């Protein structure tokens, strides 16, 4: 264990052990690969990862290689939660309750095609951690919009920017309605918050869900070196608040920016929002001001 020197106030520990290896197939600056690296540092080797079709299915490496030091089960696009439920049942039958099952899927596999399976697993309180790494489009197949794509964003299927009449699906509210064991949003740009949440999810039982914002340099039209900074701006602008379901059943913020920035500054940092008009920007800003505990990105 090494001491964390990020801020001298905290003494959270980060292990030197790596459960995700170099040579994976993620693009330079991929937020999803960095997120996986740290999720596995927290969950440790006693984890089975279940993954549907998504960028990560490619990132993990082609046969016969794998980027993960843990077992990884590839599944069809729609069924991550269902397959993870099956793995959980198999482990329970073998009395291997200590092994964590991690369903790891993109926004397409979560907000859209995988939603029914997630709802079923959540309803049954299946003992798993479901993490959606949200890069805000179907990136693996060439940047098509999903219901997690924020309005205004360019994708190949929304060449003029996604229409403002479609709001980003409120995934936390959907999962919350299932009475989950743990529920939060996070990003690796806020490492302490991120680690704390993965730790809590690990310690809890039942169906646990974490929504991670993960920058995609090519899909967001940003330079690879800026991927963390843009993710940070998403939080600082209130577009992606860091949230958690508290004990009294309310979703609350775990981080409050000291000097919040405007949504305009967040949009300006990315090529995908180039066509957002001034009026739309104002509309977005007012959405944030009205409901500061909802992810609009």
């Amino acid at each position, binding site marked *: 264990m*090494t001491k*964390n*020197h*990020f*801020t*001298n*106030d905290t003494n959270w520990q*980060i292990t030197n052990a*790596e459960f*995700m*290896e*170099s*040579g*994976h*197939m*993620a*693009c*330079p*600056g*991929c*937020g999803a*690969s*960095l997120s996986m*690296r740290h999720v596995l540092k927290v969950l440790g080797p006693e984890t089975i990862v279940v993954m549907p079709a998504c960028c990560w299915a490619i990132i*993990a*490496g082609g*046969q*016969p*290689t*794998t*980027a993960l030091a843990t077992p*990884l089960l590839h599944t069809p696009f729609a069924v991550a939660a269902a397959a993870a439920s099956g793995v959980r049942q198999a482990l329970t039958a073998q009395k291997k309750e200590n092994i964590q099952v991690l369903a790891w899927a993109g926004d397409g596999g979560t907000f859209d095609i995988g939603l029914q399976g997630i709802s079923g697993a959540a309803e049954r309180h299946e003992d798993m951690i479901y993490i959606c790494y949200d890069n805000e489009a179907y990136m693996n197949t060439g940047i098509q919009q999903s219901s997690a794509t924020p309005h205004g964003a360019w994708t190949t299927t929304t060449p003029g920017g996604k229409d403002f009449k479609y709001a980003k699906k409120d995934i936390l509210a959907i999962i919350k309605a299932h009475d989950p064991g743990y529920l939060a949003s996070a990003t*690796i740009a806020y*490492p302490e918050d991120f680690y704390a949440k993965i730790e809590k999810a690990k310690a809890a039982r039942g169906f646990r869900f974490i929504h991670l914002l993960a920058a995609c*340099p090519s899909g967001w039209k940003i*330079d*690879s*070196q*800026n*991927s*963390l*900074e843009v993710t*940070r701006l998403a939080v600082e602008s209130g577009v992606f608040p860091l949230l958690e379901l508290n004990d009294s059943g309310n979703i609350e913020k775990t981080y409050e920016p000291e000097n919040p920035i405007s949504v305009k500054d967040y949009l300006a940092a990315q090529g995908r929002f180039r066509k957002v008009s001034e009026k739309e920007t104002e509309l977005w800003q007012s959405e944030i001001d009205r409901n500061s505990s909802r992810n609009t990105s």
Partner: protein
Amino acid sequence: MNNLKYISAIRNGDFTGLPIAGSSTAVNMTGNWKFFRPLLKPKKAPCFEACPLHIGISDYIKEFAAGNHLAALEILRLSNPMPAITGRVCPNFCQSACNRTDFDEALQIGNLERALGDFGLDHPHPGNDKDENKTAAIIGSGPAGLAAAIFLTRAGVKVTIFEQNTAPGGLLRYGIPAYRLPRPILDQEIDNIIESYKIELKCNHRIESAQLKKLTAEYDVLIAAPGLSRSSIPAQWPDIPKIKGALDLLAAISRNETIPGQNFVIIGGGNAALDTARSLKRLGKTVKIIYRRTRAEMPAYPDEIMEALEEGLQIQEEVVVAKVAGTGDALNLDLHHSRKDGKQITAGDFLETITCDFLIAATGQESGTDFKDYSPELLPAGDFAHGAASVAEALASGRKAAESALEKFGLLADYPVSNQTTEESAPITCTQLHLNYYVKKPAGKTPQLEAAARNKNFSEVNLSLTLDQLADEAERCFHCGSCTTCGICWFFCPDVAIAINHDSHEAESPILFDYDHCKGCGQCAEVCPRGVIEMEEDL
């Protein structure tokens, strides 16, 4: 049927041909994808650059923060041999340049230096047993003369200092008052130096210019650091005992002499004016400073002006003394408003006539020698060489003189003394740092004696903080431009292509980039708080 084949293969441990991945992606040389590669490029910190002595500030603070106070002291003393003194009296050029100022508040480098200096008072300097068979004579035991002596003896040169006064220290002893530099501290620091380096110190030895020839013959090198220890008295003032130079008065106060008179008027706006005024106040005298410009334009250190005002000192601004007339016991001074004549200040309209017992000139310093005419024979150092400046600059100048002497002796290669980097690059600025992962923290300021208690005696105004009390302050240093192995780059590398070498020795790099797998995304360069990583085109 196929399924059965798989089951028997797995039972035999033979995975070939099965859709199960058994080897690591590390075999993929993803490093081939990159257009840019990260490189570790340490840079100069602004504090280092601003310090006349170019102290390795960030380096010693690293040791300080790690609790290695002795190691910190050793690094500090390499470039600054009297930190207990400079830690008290230096205006902290370093601190004014500190990048942390733009984030919350400057690092209190002076306090760290002072605490280490005090810690060093009973730690001898590493002595030197080498003898290079060279001798040096040094005139003056102020900071410049002492620094020259230290850096020469470190190189095995035998040194003799000639000092006209009864005790060493120059203006440290006879200029700077005890409430800013307590004499026990001064004595311990200088004694420690004289003993550790086996310097021959001959006090009560004034060197006249006629002796310079003889000294150059007797010694291999002659360094002159006689300072500027006289106050110049404006030529138009009458030559009477009621008019004194500030430095004479400060020297008398330092010697605990009785100071006659009650009412003092001091002319000037520098440290000498304020130190004289504050000292006289402590002796129960009535004091007024008259300065021809505004308070903001006073050359004295801002902290000292503030402290003086707290102590109730009167400063009359934009006024000049146009005429001085002696009437028996008292002096009559005609005060006029200042009038700006371009850069010159002249007497404008009449303001008032005031009386006082003594008029003190603190308007400039001059040399008490005529050595300037003999410059070819000697190496000049300190205030004498560069004009009235500061202790740190005097130390740097003394070190420079030692360097010239060593060069002459052909010893410089063996005993490098200067800490000046050869590269001309500008120091790293706050905008080149990445401070998103830092928290603001109040600075560890020195507690001060309350103003009411100060005027009664010469007790030190700035109180000490212990090494332990300053542990948090040491942690505040950003270590601009220098890797601390904090690991932030390692943390944020999506390709697991950075290793931190926590126990790196000087020669090895603290950061190891795995260029076989680094895709050149550049995030490490973007997050490094200290701006040490740069991306370079990968050809």
